[in-house]
Structure formats: C-alpha cells, structure tokens
C-alpha cells in the first residue's frame, strides 16, 4: 500500500508530456498558463497522436516558457518570431503537427505581422495564445490586448488605447478555426485544442487566463480564485458568434466558444495545386524537404 502511494507520487499523470527534469516550473501559483498546458497535454493524449511527430514553438514571455516544459521537440525562439520559425519548420516537415504556444504580447504586438500573414496563407499550424491582457514576463506593462481603463505598470492611470479583438483579427486574416475559452473551461478548452490540432490549416485558440501576480494585482481584482470566479460568472458561451461582436471590455462579460470552423486549401495545398497546374507531370507534389511525399 505504502509503495503503491509512493509510486503514484513519482509518476506525475502528465509525465509523458512534461519534462519532469525541469520541474518546478517558473510560473506563479494560480497562473493560468499551467492550466492551459495541462489542457494541451490532455488534448494530445486524447488525440492519440504519435508524440514524436508533434513540435511546440514558443516566443518570449511567461507563456513563452511553455516550450521548455513540454516533452516534445520544442523550440524557444525570439520575442514575436515563434510563428515564422514554426512556419519554416512546418514547410520542412509537413508531416509533423507544429503548435505555437505563446503570449498575447508576443504573438499580437511584436509578432502581429507574422500572425496575420501566416493566417492569410492558411499555413497548417496551430497557434495557442494565452491572453492575460498584459506583458507579464517584463513586469506587467500595457499590451495591445489590455482592456480600456485597465491599469498596468505603463498605463498607471488606466489604458486609453483600443485593444485588439483576437478572434476577429484571426478570422479576418484567414484562420480556418477560431475559438476562445478561459482557463476555467478546461474541458471545453481541451476539446478546442483537439479540434484545432486536427484542423487542416491555420487554427487559432485564444485562452483568457489569469495573471494573478500582475494584471490582477495592479487592478485589484483579487487572487487566483477570485479571477476564476469572475470567469465563471461572466463567461457567455456562444458558438458561432460573429467575431465582430465579441470585444472584451474591462471586467465585462466574455463571449467564449467556437467562432470559425471552415475548410480552405492550406498554404502547401495551394503551392502544390498551382505548380501542378503550371508544370503538369514535371512537378512532383511537395510533401517535405526530406522527401516525405504525400500521396
């Protein structure tokens, strides 16, 4: 009995997907990033994918550290550039599932150009954005996602810039799968990750997640539990909602759900189709730089 308990303790349920030799992680207690990582790990397990064929790419930030904790081929790149790195990796190895996991500042501010263009090309990767409304890693500065009037260390009197609506940005840029959930909706978030990863094309999941240490403290929103309670009381599930109608205001209701799920040829589909059209039999369908040809 005692040995059984000891064994159970040793084997973390996520051992297959986490680098146990890097635990303890750097995240604060009650941070929403950990919950999101768990949801991804569960999604990957449930999808029964060959985990050798999944790669995760992160930029820089608290969320950017995710790549370092996942037991997958994993790349911790530069601030804002996870998406182009992932794009190159995907083109070289289209047979792999490439998942970008990063923060709102990383993906949407400094990396915003790559986000819209990679969605436009409908590149077959999945982008997970932990939106904590703030630049957490650097101490809580204002982000392009910070709601109007919310305080941050560089908007001490309240933010006065209009924030981005991420699902609207993704959808209008060309994403074929767009969903938003909060860190409270673990089960639905897990399902969204499964759908996004299975989707052919550019899939995007925004995860509204608590940063108790900075965003919540600077705005006196209480502790981690209070934030989860807030999500519980204020999230409205509305699948298929028009992304135009789901702006997030300071402490407003948060519309969550799946907003876009459409079919469209991917970047590599288009490349192959065009070249086939032009070159006919002379053209060999591109399936990867290593000769992983798709048939």
């Amino acid at each position, binding site marked *: 009995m005692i040995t059984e308990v000891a064994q159970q303790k040793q084997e973390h349920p996520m051992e297959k997907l986490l*680098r146990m*030799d*890097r635990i303890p992680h750097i995240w604060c207690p009650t941070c929403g990033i950990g919950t999101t990582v768990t949801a991804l790990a569960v999604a990957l397990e449930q999808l029964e994918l060959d*985990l*050798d*064929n999944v*790669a995760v*790419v992160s930029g*820089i930030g608290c969320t950017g550290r995710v*790549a*370092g904790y996942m*037991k*997958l*081929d*994993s*790349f*911790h*790149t*530069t601030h*804002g*550039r996870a*998406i*182009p*790195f*992932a*794009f*190159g*990796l*995907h*083109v*070289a*190895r289209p*047979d*792999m599932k490439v998942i970008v996991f990063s923060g709102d500042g990383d993906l949407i501010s400094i990396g915003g*150009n*790559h986000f819209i*263009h990679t969605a436009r090309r409908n590149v077959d990767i999945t982008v997970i954005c932990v939106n904590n409304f703030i630049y957490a890693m650097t101490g809580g500065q204002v982000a392009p996602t910070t709601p109007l009037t919310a305080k941050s260390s560089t908007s001490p009197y309240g933010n006065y810039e209009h924030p981005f609506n991420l699902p609207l940005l993704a959808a209008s840029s060309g994403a074929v799968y767009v969903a938003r959930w909060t860190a409270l909706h673990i089960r639905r978030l897990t399902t969204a990750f499964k759908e996004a990863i299975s989707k052919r094309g550019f899939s995007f999941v925004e995860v509204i997640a608590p940063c108790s240490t900075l965003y919540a403290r600077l705005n006196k929103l209480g502790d981690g539990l209070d934030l989860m309670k807030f999500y519980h009381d204020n999230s409205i599930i509305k699948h298929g909602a028009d992304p135009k109608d789901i702006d997030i205001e300071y402490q407003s209701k948060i519309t969550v759900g799946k907003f876009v799920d459409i079919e469209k040829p991917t970047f590599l589909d288009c*490349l192959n189709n065009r*070249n086939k059209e*032009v*070159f006919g039999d*002379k*053209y*060999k369908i*591109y399936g990867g*730089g*290593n*000769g992983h040809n798709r048939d």
Partner: protein
Amino acid sequence: MKADPKNVLVGSHYLDGNHACAEGAIAAGCKFFGGYPITPSTEIAERVSRRFPLVGGVFVQMEDELASMGAILGAAWGGVKSMTCTSGPGFSLMMENFGLGIMLETPCVLVNVQRGGPSTGLPTLPGQADMMQARWGSHGDYEVIALAPDSPQESFELVIHAFNLSEKYRMPVLVMTDECVGHMTEKVIIPPAEEIELVERNYTDKKPGEAWPYEDTKNLLSPLLPVGKGYKFHVTGLTHDQRGYPIINDEAQEWNVRRLIDKVTKNVDDIVWLEEKDVEGAEIVVMAYGITSRVVQPAIAKAKKDGIKIGMIKMVTVWPFPEKRVKELADKVKALIMVEMNYGQVFLEMDRCVAGKCQTYFVGHAGGTVHNPEDVYKTIKEAVK
C-alpha cells in the same frame, strides 16, 4: 557527399552574381528559401522562385526580414538546407534572429548583397560597409564566418562553400557580396554534380534519451538532433547547458558563450581562406576582399612596373579575421594596405593585429562606386617612400 545532379545546372552560363548565388544555393541542395525583396539582392529571390518548383524546393516571399531569418532557422531544424538573402536595411532587421541562429547553432546561409548605407542609403550602388555589422550586428559575444565573393563565378562557388561551412560548424554563415558583384554579368562555369562536394548534415548516431543537442564534444561540433524521431529535445535562445535547458547563471554563460567562440577560433586554420600573390619577399602587401580585390589589381600592376616589391592578399573569408597571417607579415613587411569600400572597418582589425610592427594604410571611401585604382596606387607610392 556529391551534389544531386537534378540540382546542378551544368554548363557555361552568362550570369550576374545574384543569379549565380541562386544557382549555388540550388546546387548545394537548398530546399527552403524565405526572403523579402530588397535592391540589390532581389534577383537571388527571383531566380530561386523560378527554379525551385522543379527541384523540390519551397520559395516563400515572407512578410519581412525578421520572418525570413526566423523561417530559415525553423526550416533548418526541420531538416532542410535553408537560405535567405537581403541588403542593408534588411540585414539590420535580420540581426536578432541571426543571433538566435548562432545561439541555437543552426546551419543556414544568409547572403547580404551590400549597398551604400546607413539607412536607405544607396539602394542601387555598392558598398562594403556592413562588414562590422556582419561581425558584431547581433547583440552579445560570438564568432561569425563571412565570405566575400569577387565575381559571379565565385558567388556560385562561395554560396556552396558557405552551406558546407554552415553544416560543419553548425552555424549561420554569411556571404557578404555587394551590388557590383551582384549585378555584374560574367561567364559562370557550373561543373557537373560529381565535382561538387557537399557536407552532409551531421546527425547524432545516439538513440533518443541518450543524446543532447549541445553535447560537449571535443571539437565543439556537436551533432544535430533530428526532429520527429523521438529525441524530444529542447533548444532555446536563453543561455543553456548541453541539454539545451536554460540555465541562468554566470557559469553556464561562460560555458555557452565560450563554446560559440571556441568552435570558430579553434578551427581558424580550417576556416580562413586567403589567396596570396607575390607576398613572399614583398615590401608592401595590399589586402582586399570582394569586388575591391579586383579593383586594386591595376594599381598593383602599375606599382610592380615601378619596381616596387608588392604582394596582395585576397581575403575570401573576412571573418574570422586572418589574425595569425597578418601578425606574421607585420614582422616582415614595410607596410600593409587595406582597401575596402567603407570608412575603415576590416582595416581596424588589420591595424590591431599589426600592433605597430609595420606601417598600416587605409584606402577607403563611403561607397557608391568602386575605388579608383589611382587612389590605391598613390597610397602604395606613399607607403614605399
């Protein structure tokens, strides 16, 4: 390993330096090219975009140069040979991810067709003023390898050589050409594939679970780990240990940075490539690289006619700087003259290595045109006085 015949456009061609760079990349087996148009480098991207579909490569016109450099790193880790090209402003934008390439120890090639700077400068005219940026343009301490072709023929050859060095030393390698070489059209002989030697990517032969991405091998040239094969490795731009795990302290920093420096400095004899002419017994030696190494030749010929004992060193590799050779010569010659299309960049390295042991002269200008050989001749005359 020999080049794949499918990729080699064998024959005698009439090409400019940019088109020759593209053919060099294709012959080297490059399969991913991400780039952003910028004069005077654009013809490289254009030719690659035209040639790639039938040689199994993917050309992507990226949204900007930050993305171009990032994407070629991702592609390299995905297992393919990758390249980008740019000029002045684009080179500045690539610098952060170039540093990531150095830190992750990623094989790939970056061609900079230099134009006059700073800022937008002279888009259509040559310069050699990005040489120090090539050396130090990304933040932090590291070593680079930079090659400088003097002709379309050499552009073809040095791009292949750059790919080979990048595989061997597991790092991004720079080809620092310029507008003049890029847009000059000359005969380019592309040899048959069996005459083109390629360095294969060095992957680990260890099993998953037993191999790390930065194993402290003796010569510091750690084999790469392939993606998608169960190694489940991690690499990061943060200071890391041999496992690729971030370690934030001074000891790890010393290990990591020393590794990046030592793998080049301990192999300089293998990397440095100089072409010397009449240097033995010379009183004056002219040093130059790229197009300038051709422009100085009439001046040297004229000086020779005057009876001056003069030699020349063409630096095919500019970085790492040929420190050992310059120090040797400083003890033997009366003067070393550096000629370059800038206001004194590689000259500073030469002067540092000479350390007062002989005279040093610099012949340079702000770019926009190659040197007038007469200016070089005048300096030679002054040096022998």
